């Protein structure tokens, strides 16, 4: 079977056999009858749009880009890609200031980190939320992710970089905006695990936000230039023989698939080297090249939530297999369904209600399952679930780091 069949969105809309299976699994159709649904918005609509761009329907804005339609389609139609490409090509709606703010996670992150206490405090105030809601259209129900006082990059340069030279084996790490600005602990946790397992960590020469929010908010040119910068740094790392690890399923998916499918950039030379740290770790353990030792007193009941882009990557098996390796973990797999946030989507006032309705049954399943923690590989799922189900959510990497017996692991991998 040729690989091309799976990677070229343009060639796929004619493969549609009109079975409507995609529509069954679209989370938006389920809550909002104004959305035309994947079949209509994707392959069917594409036929019309090719005739005349006037057929473009602004309701395509309602698509979450979750790709659950693609996962379900028996004919390999790249429905989500067709819809995203159409939005970028035909939409005449100008992005708003709000969209700019939400999309530019790293510019905002850079500003906010320097003033973290002020920003965190301000974003939490109800008058500020009211202004954001009224003037900007950011829903006032949202709790904003907190900004850390010190970026991960700064911490790494000061406290970790020099130590990495001690290791023969090396990997590169694409931390992304979230681990850099909002939650450096995640990035530190990864460094801790890798170092214990005998791997040194390098940062990329330069990195920008992967661009997922730029794509979904209509800033294609900026997304493209950031993607090019990232790819060039990634190429240098891969050239040194280092795989490029990530801790966010969405960044991973964006750099592996959307760069090519939506932005039209050729990433085929490095695509296989970009991977989630959980895939990297699991593969090394499976091949007997490293071992992890865990604390005897770590005991937790943990449920795993599969983010949409993780479902699309098909990689949940690596994260869940790692979690199941921890002796003290009582593991539960949640039904794979969208939590409703879809990056910046759920932050927008016009989508807030749909967003919460989409996630409702997931939140209920979590609340009924009596777990200590939910594990998931996506930061926006974390915000949504913590806010809506009231349970702490951690990245599997942080859970492994917490459960890890560092001294014993270092001994095992010497």
């Amino acid at each position, binding site marked *: 079977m040729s690989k091309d069949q799976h990677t070229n969105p343009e060639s796929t809309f004619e493969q549609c056999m009109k*079975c409507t299976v995609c529509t069954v699994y679209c989370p938006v159709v389920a809550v909002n*009858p104004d959305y035309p649904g994947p079949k209509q918005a994707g392959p069917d609509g594409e036929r019309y749009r090719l005739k005349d761009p006037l057929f473009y329907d602004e309701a395509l804005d309602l698509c979450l880009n979750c790709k659950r339609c693609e996962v379900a389609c028996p004919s390999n139609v790249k429905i989500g890609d067709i819809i995203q490409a159409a939005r970028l090509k035909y939409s005449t709606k100008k992005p708003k200031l709000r969209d700019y703010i939400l999309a530019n996670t790293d510019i905002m992150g850079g500003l906010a980190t320097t003033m973290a206490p002020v920003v965190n405090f301000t974003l939490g105030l109800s008058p500020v939320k009211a202004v954001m809601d009224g003037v900007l259209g950011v829903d006032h129900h949202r709790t904003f992710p907190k900004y850390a006082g010190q970026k991960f990059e700064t911490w790494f340069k000061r406290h970790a970089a020099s130590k990495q030279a001690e290791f023969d084996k090396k990997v590169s790490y694409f931390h992304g905006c979230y681990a850099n600005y909002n939650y450096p602990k995640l990035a530190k946790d990864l460094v801790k695990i890798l170092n214990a397992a005998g791997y040194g960590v390098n940062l990329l020469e330069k990195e920008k936000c992967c661009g997922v929010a730029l794509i979904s908010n209509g800033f294609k040119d900026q997304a493209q230039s950031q993607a090019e910068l990232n790819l060039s740094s990634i190429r240098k790392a891969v050239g040194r023989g280092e795989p490029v690890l990530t801790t966010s399923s969405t960044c991973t998916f964006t750099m592996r698939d959307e760069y090519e499918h939506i932005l039209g950039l050729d990433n085929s030379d490095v695509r296989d080297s970009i991977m989630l740290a959980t895939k990297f770790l699991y593969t090394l353990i499976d091949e007997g090249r490293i071992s992890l030792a865990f604390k005897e007193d770590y005991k937790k009941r943990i449920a795993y939530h599969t983010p949409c882009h993780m479902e699309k*990557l098909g990689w949940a098996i690596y994260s869940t297999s790692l979690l199941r390796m921890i002796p003290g973990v009582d593991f539960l797999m949640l039904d794979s369904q969208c939590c409703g946030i879809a990056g910046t989507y759920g932050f927008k006032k016009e989508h807030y209600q749909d967003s919460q309705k989409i996630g409702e049954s997931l939140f209920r399943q979590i609340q009924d399952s009596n777990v200590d923690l939910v594990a998931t590989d996506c930061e926006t799922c974390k915000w949504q679930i913590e806010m809506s189900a009231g349970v702490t959510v951690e990245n599997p990497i942080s859970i492994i780091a917490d459960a890890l017996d560092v001294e014993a692991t270092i001994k095992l991998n010497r």
Partner: protein
Amino acid sequence: MKFDTIIIGGGLSGLIAGIELSRKGQKCMIVSAGQSALHFFSGSLELCGLEDEPAKAMEQLPQSHPYRKIGLDTALTLAERVKPLFAEVGVNFKGNAERNHWRITPLGVLKRAWLTLDEYASVPSDGLMPWKKVALLNIDGFLDFHTSYIAAGLAERGVECVVKGISMPELERLRHNPTEMRSTNIAKTLTGELIGKLAARINEYAKDVDAVLMPAVVGLAGNADVVRLKEKVDRPLHFLATLPPSVPGIRLQMMLKRHFQKLGGVYMLGDTVREGVFEGDRLAGIMTVNHGDTCFKADNFILASGSFFSKGLVSDINGVREPVFGLDVDSLDERPQWYRKDMFEAQPYMSFGVATDVGFHPSRNGQPVENLYATGSVLSNCHPMKEGSGAGVAILTALHVADTILKNQ
């Protein structure tokens, strides 16, 4: 990553095999490219519909037929296990393998069936209609259910139909977008509190009838809504099949998958097996699109990738191929021989498929692959439409191969 058995294709056949193997303690993985033919499920499983008695009907089948390879006696013994197996999954069927009963098609015609979902309308094997007068209801604006065909079909058999449409404000919302007024979207709306309201609307028309018949548009997430609705409707309520997508089929797919996962199975949806890694006459592992250079290894493999519809078989200028491993297929060389002009005749291409020996081992270039088996509609020499044997072949070959794998382990 290493498993006891890896199954390619997560439709009816792959899931039954996976459940049976997992129940007996095997570590299994299913990889499935997309959703399966169950999304088109009529509500009835067919075993062999050529005659009233499946055992007799099966005797008409050629020696090369999958049932013959299993052995007719063994096949009928396996059939006995199916109802209890589904009950364990949480889905109840009526019917038996001694005598077919009749299902009612969306066109109002009767067709022979082996097992029909409990909540569905069916006609006993003697063909005598169980009702004199029924209320035949539809949801207003729902285009995938044609009461006129069904009413005509029932009238021919002496059943009087009172045809009514139901509208509810909650359903009116769906009509904004007529293309999305689908069985599954209706079922997503008709749940929870609305079940009571729906029952009240149905009861307005259910006064002096023997039964109420309505399209299967309830119970996408599980059986609970169906049970509650039946309780609240004053008369016996039975569902009829709609045009696809099939609400009960999707529920069945979901419940089978959940059961398989509960037994410890790994189910990977949306990933396509690209190729196999062979060591001599054995398949050592498989490579998938999503997992790049990761090789998934197992002692045994089952190919349950379906027919043309699911891309288990593909056809092009050069003929019919099995695209994953390039297995030998049974087909006809000359393209014009593939079809019959009359659309309603049995089409030869439908019996094309992967060639296997009596133990269901496919071969490559004439050489059988020891630890690979094929099951379900990817197999050759059965004709699901003509014989009325689709689900039977999918389920019985899966159970038979699972038994073989367990016996040899």
